[in-house]
């Protein structure tokens, strides 16, 4: 990593990515023509190019992942509403928050499409938050005289609009112990809890509908077959760039952050773990890895494995899959919340092994997968520091 360690600029909260398919040389065009002719002869009965089939299958998967997230968010909203009617037992709402976070982590890698339009990804989750902006912004909202409603949140910082604020309200002792107090402040806090979970439903619903939108679908899917033109990044490149970008964030931010690998002295800091308040940092990473695995191997559709086979690179799919499995296995060896494990030297070898394995996975995606699919990766937000 880069030293300007003294800065905390590196962050997973910026999701600007891009990639373009590199088909500009005359050679490639000729090659492409030969390929198209060959394919036409071989499979005259199915004219859909493999890229388009893969993109369509991934698109379907993303759509159902958003649906799943929507369902969990709705359940969370009713769960917090139930709790606020009689604020005694927080555990059902906490459990439902964990389920919602897991559903989000499954689809977090999708940093393209409708989610980018309203900064909706930051509305769902704001992280990293090293200076604890969430506690300050939530505190400011609670101090206001006026009642809190959706319009209040609309004007407020993205930090208070989603899962990050809900985690604070549900899992942070400074907040969670207040609910039973029967004070105006406790009531206000419940108001915020309810309104924020409803706001999350609205956000997720907007993305989910945006993704299913016919216009969006047809435009997006069309880019898979036209390749790169001057105005658009094609869908296939977006998918690959987003897969890589997500795994880079796992390594640099989700693991490297709390391990202290972003500072010169390499001092760990448990507060830099994602979702440290709910102890779900490792569950998040597991969900990220599983989401990647499902893009590679989808039993029910045209998956990356088949696409790579088409490009004559079938073994690469096995390599990537094996590396994902290795990461999952190393992760399951860590039987302590990440925020605590990084502060315990006994866990260092295991954490380092996982960190390194994710790095190797990234190399496979960057130097193996992208060239195999003739995709040229552009800048992503992990560039910079």
């Amino acid at each position, binding site marked *: *990593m*880069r*030293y*300007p*360690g*003294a*800065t*905390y*600029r*590196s*962050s997973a*909260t*910026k999701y*600007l990515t*891009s990639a*373009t398919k*590199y088909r*500009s040389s005359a050679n490639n065009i000729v090659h492409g023509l030969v390929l198209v002719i060959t394919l036409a002869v071989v499979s005259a009965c199915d004219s859909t190019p493999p890229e388009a089939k893969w993109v369509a299958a991934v698109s379907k998967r993303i759509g159902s992942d958003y649906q799943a997230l929507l369902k969990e968010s709705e359940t969370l909203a009713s769960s917090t509403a139930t709790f606020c009617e009689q604020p005694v037992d927080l555990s059902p709402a906490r459990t439902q928050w964990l389920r919602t976070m897991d559903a989000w982590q499954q689809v977090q890698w999708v940093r393209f499409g409708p989610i980018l339009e309203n*900064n909706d990804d*930051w509305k769902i989750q*704001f992280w990293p938050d*090293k*200076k*604890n*902006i969430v506690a*300050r*912004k939530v505190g400011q909202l609670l101090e206001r005289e006026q009642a809190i409603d959706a319009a209040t949140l609309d*004007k*407020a*910082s*993205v*930090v208070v609009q989603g899962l990050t604020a809900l985690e604070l309200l549900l899992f942070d002792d400074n907040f969670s112990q207040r609910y039973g107090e029967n004070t105006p402040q406790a009531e206000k806090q419940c108001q915020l809890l309810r309104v924020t979970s409803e706001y999350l439903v609205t956000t997720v619903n907007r993305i989910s509908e945006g993704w299913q939108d016919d216009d969006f679908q047809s435009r997006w899917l069309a880019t898979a077959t036209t390749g790169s033109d001057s105005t658009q990044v094609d869908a296939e490149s977006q998918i690959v760039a987003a897969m890589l970008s997500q795994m880079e964030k796992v*390594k640099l931010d989700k693991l*490297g952050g709390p391990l*202290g690998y*972003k*500072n*010169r*002295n390499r*001092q*760990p*800091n*448990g*507060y*830099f773990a994602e979702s440290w308040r709910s102890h779900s940092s490792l569950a998040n990473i597991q969900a990220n890895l599983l989401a990647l695995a499902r893009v590679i191997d989808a039993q029910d559709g045209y998956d990356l494995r088949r696409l790579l086979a088409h490009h004559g690179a079938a073994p690469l799919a096995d390599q990537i899959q094996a590396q994902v499995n290795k990461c999952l296995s190393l992760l399951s060896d860590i039987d302590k919340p990440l925020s605590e494990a990084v502060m315990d030297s006994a866990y260092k070898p295991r954490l*380092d092994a996982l*960190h*390194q394995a994710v*790095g190797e996975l*990234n190399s496979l995606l960057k130097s193996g997968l992208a060239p195999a699919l003739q995709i*040229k*990766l*552009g*800048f*992503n*937000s*992990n*560039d*910079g*520091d």
Partner: protein
Amino acid sequence: MKPVARLVLAGGLLASATLQAAVTEQGVVKNYGDIAYAVFSDSLITAQFLQVKVDALVEAPSQATLDAARSAWKQARVPYQQSEVFRFGNGIVDDWEGQLNAWPLDEGLIDYVAASNYHHEMGNVGANANIIANTSLKLGGTTLDLSTITPDLLASLNELGGSEANVATGYHAIEFLLWGQDLNGTKAGAGQRAYTDYIQGDGCTHGNCDRRAQYLKAATELLINDLKTMQAQWAPGQQNYRAELESQKSEAALTKALFGMGSLALGELAGERMKVALEANSTEDEHDCFSDNTHFSHYYDAKGIENIYYGTYQRVDGSVIKGDSIAMLVKAKDPALAKATDKQFKQTMASMQALVDKAEAQQNAQKFDQMIAEGNEAGAKLIQDAITGLVALTRKIEKVAVELGVENLSPETADHEF
């Protein structure tokens, strides 16, 4: 990519506009080095001027000497921010710059802070160390001797206790010592440190004025030493980093140049320094948060990107460096792309200029920290337009890279080490 051979002109006297040699990649790399040398030289010159003003402030604290030091600090930022485009891609710059431009900082490490208005990084053991008020510091099992504040001591205290927010040195530490905390949040006004914080003996405010003066002088001296080091690395005709860069294939240097431009534009400037602050409405993520000079810092970052593309740089003395440029290479290979990129630069720079114009307006001026206030739609739009412009510019830089045959935008050092 075979560059067209450059015409060799006896004595070089004939190299006029009427008889221009064809642009070459080697020429672009040489000019890239010339600009780096000039930018770091200007950073040094303006830092030395800052030192003169800092010395005058410490010698005779008054509103006038404090204002002069603040003004010199702002001038010093002009060339330095234009150097940031050299950071990403050139590992030697990136490894060095933390000591000069690290942010955001937990300023309680350095001096007194208003407890009610100080938000430090979670888990930072040095967040309230207050080096100026303490001649020793207990940290874990060890006690650090802080009795004499020297450049070396300050450099050793960076990232104290492993926290990146412990920034003891550089432009932002000096900025804090000149302005103090900005306690206005997203309202108008910058830091309001009084010059009396530097009065020696009777009249000293907030205590420890001797150590505060010592700190300010030591931090300024370290800044100058560091800038000298980097200037030497880019001096022509020496055995240094620049010589190494010029001895490599020109494609390697072009890759570094393009990577630096794109990384600064997208991840760093548009993402980290603007979008995070805007979307979170967070003044903690404002770049020059004590002085409210953020608009100029952002503008000159973007200007640095433009400098590299067009191969020009206007020095602080007004003279202009000009030579072979990436723009010329693109124009020779793909005039349409060159034209589109020109257009994008104009648009992006205009959106950066708009931030400056609003911040420096005679009436109803708004600084960056006011623009990011919750509910300030007009301010948010100004910043959003700048972000959008930088993102679009990055796309053009990617296309330029493809056109110039740069296959992989990440230089080898971009993802080094776990």
